[in-house]
């Protein structure tokens, strides 16, 4: 097996669930109210490796901790214990078009969003045409994005993100956006990624997507890792478990 692009080592993440949340100075001072909370472990001692150049699927029921894990990979959340190390630049596609400013034109937003995602002006210059062509909104690129339809908005955001050119791309359930033609373009883009030897980690609820695209997979349940390995056997175990649950 080739070297690991991402090593997840014994990662645990705790959230505070508030029974009574006090976020007002007034009540804190006047009535001496304190917050009451309970710890909730969204990830428990999760360890696995993602081989370099693989397309890695993450599966599990709703609330099993998939998004939490991706956010830890993307450095948006920090684990309470354990560590995550990755080789090369990591980019994440958790929600597209966040950070767009409605008054600015599509062109200006491409540059703004690119720099939020860590691209330099030169990078964006080089990729600009590719981004715009991929999004299919060239005609409107100098219009303020507040005039865009939500589909155009998402497509432009997605095009910027996917052109960041990271070594590891982290994707959360966004393959559902756009029409069929756009989804096909996205899949083609992921395939291109793989051919270029890059690593993709993705969460999707479509079994079809996992089967078509992934070579490795991990299955999370209630914050714990159930199984990790080649996509086929993990998917087999996972589907069997779901079928069992349905009955």
């Amino acid at each position, binding site marked *: 097996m080739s070297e690991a692009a991402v090593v997840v080592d014994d990662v645990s993440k705790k959230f505070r669930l508030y029974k009574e949340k006090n*976020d007002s100075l007034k009540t*804190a001072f006047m009535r001496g109210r304190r917050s009451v909370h309970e710890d909730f472990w969204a990830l428990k001692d999760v360890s696995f490796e993602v081989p370099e150049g693989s397309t890695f699927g993450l599966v599990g029921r709703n609330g099993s901790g998939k998004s939490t894990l991706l956010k830890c990979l993307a450095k*948006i959340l920090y684990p309470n214990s354990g560590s995550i190390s990755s080789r090369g630049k990591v980019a994440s596609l958790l929600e597209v078009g966040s950070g767009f400013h409605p008054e*600015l034109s599509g062109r200006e937003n491409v540059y*703004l969003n690119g720099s939020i995602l*860590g691209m*330099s002006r030169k990078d964006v210059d080089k990729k600009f045409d590719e981004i715009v062509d991929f999004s299919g909104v060239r005609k409107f690129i100098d219009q303020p994005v507040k005039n865009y339809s939500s589909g155009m908005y998402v497509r432009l955001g997605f095009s910027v993100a996917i052109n960041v050119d990271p070594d590891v791309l982290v994707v959360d359930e966004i393959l559902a956006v756009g029409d069929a033609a756009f989804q096909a373009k996205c899949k083609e883009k992921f395939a291109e990624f793989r051919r270029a030897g890059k690593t993709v980690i993705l969460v999707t609820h479509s079994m079809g997507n996992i089967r078509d695209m992934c070579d490795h997979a991990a299955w999370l349940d209630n914050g714990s890792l159930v199984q990790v390995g080649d996509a086929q056997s993990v998917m087999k175990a996972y589907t069997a478990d779901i079928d069992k649950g349905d009955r």
Partner: protein
Amino acid sequence: MTYLSELFASRELFYNLTMRDVKGKYRRTVLGQLWSLINPLATMLVYTLVFSFIFRARPSVGDPSGLDIYPLWLMTGLLPWLFFTRVVTGGMSSVIGNAGLIKKVYFPRMHLPFSVAGSVGYTWAIEMGVLVVALTVFGGMPLIWVPVAVLFMVLLALFALGLAMLLAIGNVYFRDLQHFTSIALQMWMYLTPIIYPLHLVEDQAEVHGQWILDVYRLNPMERFVSVFRELLYDNRWPDLGDSLVCVAWTVAMFTIGFLVFKRSEKRLAELL
């Protein structure tokens, strides 16, 4: 990569976020960027009417500039103050205001308050430019003092940023901190010699005891306002003591704000 080098490496983001605010704010309004000047002009008119004509506040004559024009005297103190309050209020709400971004993308979060200072500072620089022109037209010689004034503008920006970063984190824990801050800033303005001259306070201190003045001058904004007046209205070197106090406050405030923000930054995504 250390924290500072990462912040520096992503300076383009700072620039882009700043320009997002600058361009977004006045885009597609008929008067565009001119709006940014109308606001302080309107404030100037109101204060001049109330304090110069009705209350007859008389600033001391500019020494050595010889200027004796209340609206200009007012603006050399008011423009820095308005910048300060805009950075503090804008910077403190920048974290909560960008919660969506913080929860979805990784980037050095400190660029959020920084870019508020950047875009507010951009407007402020234009305002100060217009003021310098006006001061010159009315017979002052502020031009040679501009480099020193710019230095103090940077100091004031860092001071305001330090406070803004501290309050931005506080605001995440206590969502009503914004209201308290805006009330505090209003009171703070009247405790600073912006619309009335310092010598009114000195007169009272002579009658009721020196301690009044000592307490009054604990206010760092009093020092900043005095320095800007000395440079641009009086056209002379600012008092050395005042200057040093400004530097000390800036270093202390920025360091505290920076460290508090840096410590809490990693937890912002789950606190919001």
